């Protein structure tokens, strides 16, 4: 499949296994914090809009800003996993 998978010696197997674990754990662990953060943002938005429905569009624009900044953290982990696998 990829150069990392063509393994014959024990050391090569170990390296492949390490890289594969790095790839999986990278995104997986990063998604933990991101999931909590995103849930927080949207929950707070729901609370705020329910308190003051007339500010819905302003609150929503802040919500999208927060969403994109929080979503970025899962991609930092994803890129770290990719670097672990390919580099």
């Amino acid at each position, binding site marked *: *499949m990829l150069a990392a998978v063509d393994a014959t010696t024990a050391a090569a197997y170990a390296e492949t296994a390490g890289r594969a674990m790095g790839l999986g754990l990278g995104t997986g662990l990063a998604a933990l914090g991101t999931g909590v953060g995103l849930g927080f943002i949207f929950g707070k938005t729901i609370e705020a809009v329910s308190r003051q429905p007339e500010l819905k569009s302003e609150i929503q624009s802040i919500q999208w800003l927060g969403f*994109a900044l929080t979503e970025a953290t899962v*991609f*930092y982990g994803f890129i770290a996993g990719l670097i672990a696998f390919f580099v």
Partner: protein
Amino acid sequence: MTKKFSPSRLSRLSLAVWVTLMGAMLAVPGLASAATPEEPRLDPAQEFDLPPWISIHIFGIDMSINKGVFYILLAAVLTVVVVSLVARTMTVRPKGKVQTTVEIGYSLMKDNITDGNLDPKMAARWFPFIGTLFLFIWFSNMIGYLPLPTNTEHTFDVAGVAIPSFALYAATANISVPLVLALVVWIAYNVEGIRAKGFFKYIRSWVPAGVEGFMVGPILAIETLSHFVRLLSLSLRLFANILAGHLLILFMAGGLVVLLGMGFFGSVILGVATGALAVTFLLFEIGLVATLQAFIFCTLTAIYLDGAVAEEH
């Protein structure tokens, strides 16, 4: 305007064209490779290769035209042409959807991003930059979801002419493009800060007001690190969002099935399931991520510029 070019017909027509292109991208290489069974192993790392189309070397620097350069030029041309055309042909009361959309976009750029974060003097100076940045990133992200015949690695034959396969590729999916944009923004806001405050006062302003004595040292070190990390995070956010979106779509739309290499019926069942996911992700990316990432990049640019020249409170 005659009935033939009415807006609803044009949008239905463009939707039909896009669906056809997507279908061609998915079906034709599959059919072509089914005819020639010696299929090379799928190499996902090939996504990152950029073979040069026209080799240009200036003083040893590789300036070849390749797929990425083509997409950047396409995004730049689209940005300039579309907005200039709308600016020339616009009417006081908007007659079509395009002008309305551009007006909404302009209001987003000016009122929300620039005026919402910068004082009037800085806003007037930096709005053209932020507006162009927003449009360039937006167009660059969006044409990444339009299948264009640019995959010169796997060509297919139509009446004897080798046409490159259709491929999904975005210029911003390569780390270089967001990195350069982030570098420009980073240098710009630091220069603005130095210009407004002088070099040492600007560095001193990184430390929040109220911190004095021996704590200034460590806090200054942390703040310097955070300013350098801003460069990294700004570029990486845009790059990784678009790259992850593309990889998800490509893997769901057939990569996973090919990689797993199950039998015929297993592949069909998995392919249908992941294919539906691929369409969902594609719609999600087009509807939300492309615009949102451009918006975020420009909002952060405005916030950094404002933070660089703001007086301490």
